[in-house]
Every structure is written in structure tokens, then in C-alpha cells.
């Protein structure tokens, strides 16, 4: 729990630091004020950096306080659910175009439903997967004229 509590402000400090360092690498503009594109990002990253440091100290002060939400993240299968959804999303990104919308969506939604809703409800999972994939495909591609692979 402590790792998440400190990790978040540290991540914000890193993000602000990366933006600040990268701001100095922005090339000078040929049009108008050569430093014009720099001011806003530099000002903001310094602002964010200062606030993130304050945030870090605030978190350090309350490090031992209980946070039910962070605890919930590590309880049961929450982390697994999130990780599997992300993994399936990445696979979906790779198969979406080569496999086409219908096949890839049936695979993605089917796997996700089986994992989230459980194997016991296999009938409902299959019916929902096939019907919703088809309805979405028909709705977007035929009714709304959106071109899908």
C-alpha cells in the first residue's frame, strides 16, 4: 500500500521532470518569437513539479493511514481482472485489422466475458458475445456507414 501511496507522487514528479527536460529540447521556432512554443510547457512543468513535491510530502505525512481503495486493488482478483483486460486489449489491437472487426471482436469480447463473468455462465457469455458483436458491426457498418475492417 505504501508503494502506491508514494509511487503516485513520484510518478507525477517524474512526468513533470520529463516534460521539463524535453521542453528545453523543443527546437526554436522560425516564425514569430523563437521561444514562443517553449514558455507554456516550461511554466506548466515547473508548476506541476512543485505541486508534485508538495503532494509527496503530504503523502509522507499520512503514509500509515489506511486507504480502503488501495487495499481493494490488491484484494481478490482485481489486479488480475485489470491485467487480463489490458492484455486482451493489446491482443485486440494486433488482431483487429488482420482478422476483421467481427472475428476479432468475438474473440476479444468472448475472452473478456468468460474471464469476468466466469465459465459457468458459458451460454449467456456466448449469446451476449455473438449478438453484441453482430449488433455493433451492423449498427456501425451498415446503419451509420462507418467503415470497419
Amino acid at each position, binding site marked *: 500500500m505504501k508503494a*502506491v*501511496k508514494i509511487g*503516485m507522487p513520484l510518478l*507525477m514528479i517524474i*512526468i*513533470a521532470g520529463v*516534460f521539463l527536460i*524535453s521542453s528545453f529540447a*523543443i*527546437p*526554436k*521556432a*522560425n*516564425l*514569430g*518569437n523563437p521561444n*514562443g*512554443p517553449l*514558455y*507554456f*510547457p516550461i511554466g*506548466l*512543468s515547473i*508548476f*506541476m513539479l512543485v*505541486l*508534485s513535491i508538495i503532494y509527496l510530502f*503530504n503523502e509522507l505525512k499520512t503514509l500509515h493511514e489506511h486507504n480502503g*481503495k*488501495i487495499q481493494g*486493488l490488491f*484484494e481478490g482478483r*482485481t489486479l488480475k*481482472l*485489470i491485467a487480463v*483486460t*489490458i492484455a486482451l*486489449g*493489446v491482443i*485486440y*489491437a494486433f488482431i*483487429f*485489422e488482420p482478422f476483421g472487426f467481427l472475428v476479432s*471482436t468475438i474473440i476479444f*469480447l468472448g475472452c*473478456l*466475458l468468460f474471464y469476468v*463473468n*466466469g465459465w459457468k455462465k458459458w451460454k449467456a*457469455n456466448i449469446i*451476449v458475445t455473438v449478438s*453484441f458483436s453482430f449488433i*455493433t458491426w451492423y*449498427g*456501425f457498418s451498415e446503419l*451509420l*456507414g*462507418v*467503415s*470497419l475492417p
Partner: protein
Amino acid sequence: MDAFLQGFQIVLQPMNIFWVVIGGFLGTIVGMLPGLGPATAVAVLIPITFGMDPTSAIILMAAIYYGAMYGGSRSSILLNTPGDGSAIAATFDGYPMAQKGQAGEAMAISAVASFIGGVLAVFGFIFLAKPLANFALKFGPSEYFLLMLLTLSAIVSLSIGKMVKGFIAMALGLLISTIGIDPQTGVHRFTMDIPHLSEGIEFLIVIIGVYAVGEVFYNFLTIDKVKKEKKKVGRIWFTKEQWKRSKWPILRSAPLGFIVGVLPGAGGSIASMMSYSSEKQLSKKPEEFGEGAVEGLAAPESSNNAASVGAMIPLLTMGIPGSGTTAVMLGALIMLGVRPGPLLFENDPGIVWALINSMFIGNIALVIINVLLVGLLVKILDTPAKVLYPLIIMLAFIGTYTLSYSTADYFLLLLFGVIGLFMKIMDFPIAPLVLAIIVGGDMEQNFRMALTSSNGSFSIFFSSGISITLIVLTVLSLFYPIVINKFKKKSRNNDKEAISA
């Protein structure tokens, strides 16, 4: 007046009425899902508007927005889980009513209160929008920059107790908005030589990521713990006695909600809380509040719907969204090729008045949907979350694809989903991030244009009465949490003194 009637004619076209009904119904369903609010509903359903003509698309979008507001109160009443801040007050007395077996009556009075609040606010809109648009024509780049600054600082200040986090979220959002080619100079910023980033990060992907994917991830925390509650709906219309108790609170709350809605950063949550507490103070039976007092539900419902119409004024006349949900609406409008601002009323009055009139028709359609289809809606709410959340995730992916026709954005979607999850877990307000990403580009351009026109002198930001007023308001908004804290401490001390006496 002509434009108003012309707008009415557009909305009354059968196809547009059809879209109002469909949008209202879909919005109600998504808004009703526990944990998902109007912002998520609009974000997930945006792709439905693709391929439609802009007027119909906007009418549909607005119907989804109002539908989701109605839907949000359904889950507050039936499940005690508000979809967003503006639906919180509906849980105070709505849920106790449902527990007493009066769920149907509660939903009917909330639908009628929302309807009356919404319709009264539309009249307010008609009177206020045009003068405000004319006033906004006086705004130059420096005034616009300061107005955006005020909106951002107000929205951060209103997330009381989370100001540091709010400003971090805001700064992050503004920094994200600088990614891509700088429109003034053509310089690449933070693109890391990735061609896909040169156009910047599409803010709708951020919105769908943090609101839809992030919310689903967050709901995974409790997905196995949620117990199913069977609710008796009871009669689906309220009694004469309930109406007698509710009518004045409804009528009083509408103007209050409308005014709060117009103010930057405020919006539905503040409006509904304010009207709840003022009705409690005015009531002859304040002890019944929180135990299922019908006026304790009717007042905030009227107020938050009036606020959602009021929030359309700064959105349409100045292009300034006042809340996370209206920020999503702004995103949707920009995507549809409509640029909100004072000139919208001059250049495209048809769209504006069609949208406003769709509020009338939409509110009527929503009352009918919400009263007649109560049984169906309750059944949908019975659908297990474990089936609904994967469907929301699927819709989020498809929505993202239809925005750019590139699966590369799926990775950004997931990234922002994780960011949204951790922001929720660590108690960061999300609205400042979303708002900053949307207005960030304009804010920077206006800031630089103002400085260019003054040859780099910052005095331009103090050169007009409007600018100075905006600066004063921004500073005041920063002190607002301190004043509120002092006020709370004082009232706590008074309570203690009263108890010890």
C-alpha cells in the same frame, strides 16, 4: 424568435424525434449503470453520431446527455450508487424511499421534477444566451485566456480538500494538450519522432480512456462484492400529497440550479446540494430529510437538471465547459465540426436553436421513457455488472477506432484507462484533467496571441475591466476552500458550544 421557431421545426422532424427518443433511452441505460455517470455515457456513445448530419448528431448527443442525467438518478434511487456528483443528492431521500417500497413513486417524482427543472431552465437559456453571446463578442485573446484560467481554477477549487491534486491534474492535462505540432509555429513538441503523435493526443480518447475504461477498472475493485438487491417498484406514479409537498421545492430549485449551472466550475453537484440544504432549512419537517422525504428528492432533481441546461450557456456562448460532463459535450461538438463560441449564434443559429428545442422535446420524451418503461429499466439494472462492464470496454475500443481508424490509439486508450483508475484510487479529481486537455490548446494560443499583440508585455492582462474582473474572480476562487473550511470549523464549534450548553 424566428430562429427559435425554425429550431423547433427542425427538432419536430420525425427522424430527429426518433433520435431524441433513442438518445434519451440509451443515455438513461448507460447513466443508470452503477458507477458510470453522464460523462461516460456521452463518451462511450459519441461514435453513434458518426455519419449523421451535424444537427441530428447534436440533438442525439444532447438527448444522450439528458438521458444519462435521468439514468444517474435511477441508480441513486434504486441502488444508492450515484453515477456522478450531481446524482449524489438523489440518494439522500431517493434510496430511503425505495427501501420503503416507494421506488416507483420516487422515480416518477424525480422524472417530473427533472422535467420541470429542465423546461424552466430552457426559458432561462432563451433569455440569457443571446445577451451573453453578444457580451462575449467583446472578449479578446487576453480575456479568453483569463476566462479559461478562471474556469480551471474554479473547477479545481471546488474539489475541496484535493486542491493540490486538482492542480496537478490540471497541469498534466495542459501539458498533454501541448503534445503535437504547435499551430502557431509548426514546431514539433513532445512527439518523440512518433508520426502518430504529431497531430497531438485526441482528447476524446483521453475522455473515453479515463471515464469509460478507467471507471470499469475502478468498478473491478468491487465487482465480486456487489450484492444484488431486489427492489419492489410499487406504484409508478406519485400521490397528490407527495405532489403537494414537492411542487414548491421543485419550482424554487429550478432557478437556483440554473444560476449555479451558468457559473464556471460549479454545475449539477453544487446545485443539487445547495437546493437540498436550502429545502431542508425551509421545511417544516426537516427531521424527515434523509428518511425518505419526497421534497428532499424532488428539489435536487429539479435543480441538477436546471443546472445541466444552465451549463450549456457558457459552453455554447463562449466554448467554456463548466464541468467534466460538459467538457465531454464540448469534445463531442468540436468533433462534429461545431465550434461553440459567440459567433455560433451568428453563423449557425439553426444548430443552436435546434439543440435548445431538443431540450424541450428531450425532457418530454425522457419523462415518458422513465415513467412508462420503469419496469424495463429496472430489469436492465438487474443485468449483472459482470456482463455490462465487458460490453462498455468493447464500446470504448470501437469508439476509439472510429475516431482515428487506427488501432495504435488502443494503447493510448488503455494507458489513459490506467491513469483514470489510479486517479480515482488516489482521490484525484478527474474533471480538471479532462477540462484542461480540451481547453489547453486554445488557452495557450490565446495567451500567446495576447502577448504578441502587446509586444510581450503582461500589462495586456490588466488592460480592460473584464480582464481585471476575471483576475479578481480567479483569485477569489482560490480562496474559496479556505473560506469554506473556516466556515465549517466555525459551525462545528458552534455545534459543540450548543451541545455543551
